């Protein structure tokens, strides 16, 4: 059997694929963060809580209303996105023009409150959410057993990431968005409702987090802490990719998933820290991030 650095090649392919799957979650979450940061200049620390809310909404839809996974994929992001719009209208709007720190404190505080409420209601162990029957089972790829559900996650998140990128980079709506990021006053003078666009963008970023939450529900335990554990890593991904860079967040999300996956083979104990080590190195060499533009 061919071996690479003492690990059989087939096993290595398996780990690469797994890394890609985890990277899919990083990519989707950091994409939402990047979109929000780009337009609102807000570092959305509530993102992890909103991802968790997505998973919980799916759970509630199933257990309280009998609505299954496929509808949840649509309904949960809509609902959580709507709560995001409320947050933007009621709270975040007031912070426009202030220092980043205020937005950070507000969203971080909100995250703690939301997590606390869910923990109080559902406990910290979390709740089970079954894989939808259509996606149960898996394929034997020869070098590994690939569960159908994980394959689905990679494909869906790639599609979502690409669509978002296309909308922002290639459509008229996207060009408004990018223009409003550069100079909101001028764009408003052209007759475009910038405040509404800001609100909807935040709602969209949040909905993206909730969508990732629904995708995650069958894999991980639906638990109030699932977002808090992930969000720190996702922030590191955003920083490495370059704050506000759409493509950067997608590529680094998948890339770091793979790096983390490989670490789990060669030195499992370090798998929780490797991303932060990379972050420190990137910040030293390229303070704006791998894909960021220095202004």
């Amino acid at each position, binding site marked *: 059997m061919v071996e690479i650095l003492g690990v*059989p090649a087939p*096993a290595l392919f*398996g*780990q690469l694929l*797994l*890394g890609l*799957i*985890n990277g899919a979650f990083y990519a989707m979450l950091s994409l939402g963060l990047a979109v929000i940061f780009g337009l609102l200049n807000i570092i959305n620390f509530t993102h992890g809580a909103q991802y968790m809310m997505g998973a919980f909404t799916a759970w509630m839809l199933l257990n309280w209303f009998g609505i299954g996974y496929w509808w949840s994929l649509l309904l949960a992001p809509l609902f959580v996105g709507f709560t995001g719009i409320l947050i933007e209208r009621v709270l975040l709007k007031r912070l426009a023009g202030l220092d980043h720190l205020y937005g950070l404190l507000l969203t971080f505080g909100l995250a703690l409150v939301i997590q606390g409420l869910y*923990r109080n209601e559902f*406990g*910290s*162990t*979390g*709740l*089970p959410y*079954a*894989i939808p029957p259509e996606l149960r*089972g*898996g394929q034997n790829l020869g070098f*590994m*057993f690939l*569960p159908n*559900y*994980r394959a689905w996650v990679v494909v869906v998140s790639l599609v979502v990431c690409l669509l978002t990128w296309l909308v922002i980079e290639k459509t008229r709506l996207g060009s408004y968005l990018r223009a409003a990021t550069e100079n909101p006053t001028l764009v408003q003078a052209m007759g475009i409702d910038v405040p509404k666009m800001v609100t909807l963008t935040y709602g969209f970023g949040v909905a993206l987090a909730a969508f990732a939450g629904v995708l995650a529900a069958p*894999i*991980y*335990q639906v*638990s109030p*802490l*699932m977002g808090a*554990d*992930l969000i720190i890593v996702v922030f590191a991904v955003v920083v490495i990719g370059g704050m506000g860079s759409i493509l950067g967040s997608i590529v680094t999300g998948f890339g770091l998933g793979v790096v983390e*996956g490989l670490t*789990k*083979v060669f030195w*499992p*104990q370090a*798998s*929780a*820290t490797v991303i932060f080590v990379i972050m420190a190195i990137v910040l030293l060499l390229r303070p704006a991030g791998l894909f960021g533009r220095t202004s």
Partner: protein
Amino acid sequence: MKGSLLATGAAIAAFALAFPAAADFTGGKVRIGVLNDQSSLYADITGQGSVVAARMAVEDWGGKVRGVPIEVVFADHQNKPDVGANISRQWYDTEGVDVIVDVPTSSVALAINEITREKNKVFLVSGAATSDLTGPKCSPNTVHWTYDTWALANGTGSAIVQTGGDSWFFLTADYAFGHALERDTEAVVLKAGGKVLGKVRHPLNNPDFSSYLLQAQASRAKIIGLANAGGDTINSIKQAAEFGIVAGGQNLAGLLVFITDVHGLGLQTAQGLILTESFYWDLNDQTRAWSKRFAERMNGRMPTMVQAGVYAAVTHYLKALDALGSDADGRAVVAKMKEIPTDDPLFGKGQIRIDGRKLHPVYLFEVKKPAESKGPWDYYKLKATIPAERAFRPLAEGNCPLVK
């Protein structure tokens, strides 16, 4: 003059004999500090449930010991040894806490173990698992109540080796607890003639286990031993099902599984798991009655063995204070606890050994199939009872310096 001095002396002596309490209880009250995980992956196993259990013990005792009021305080150690050590020093030095109870997360418990010894207070462990607390690190100020890694290995590990699971691969949480559980289980496996084909150590509170499961799958070991706990165990089991581990002929051994974990997994996923616990709410009339009272206060949640252990340990502590009439000297209190036989509704009759280990029977359970369960929390079938004298590590094998 001489006569009156003598009379006064006699009066003081009589007073001291009649009311020893006021003078000998530090701070004029007994203060019990419940220190555990209030917010993270072990919060359902310990958390507020342990605080409620401690309060129930105090209430059932009558709220006072020898006329001195008893208080329960609690704090969150966030599973970090430095945070736990800071809180315990503050409690002991400035806030008049006499005894620290529970403390899950073995790394934190080992730190508190040393601080308690240094300050001559009392440490009643229920949440932490490492058998080192009654082994090389044993202390005259510590009682280890509910369970330990040796008992888990001896229960679940032996049962699985005996039914043919003789080759193992460990998924181990990378800190004191995981290492101890892996070590104790490995010893059981090797002693029974089995072999260990590999192990992988994952960070605490790790969400994705697929990579480790794939490594376990590649090892072709018959048994994948999960030397982790709480959310880590839940995610391991859940993802093992997803990757077809069990369907592929390998079996999982959850070496430490709590009833809240089974509740979180759901019977569909958890069915058939073999696990070791020293308490289950549905054991007998007394455990049922107590658990019902507990559940009424905990939003319908049944107690874990850790929470039951907190109740029993606090009850026995108060019994010792009552007999001793003082809480000032931690070593003397623990010596008294060892001297009096234990008797409580949850663990029955037992005793505390010289090395600090509480002895009681330990049970081997199997998780029911969904069809067998009559409703929420009806999860376990009793497979075997391991009597107290065989449930825990023999005194001579622990290397505890207190044993000579």
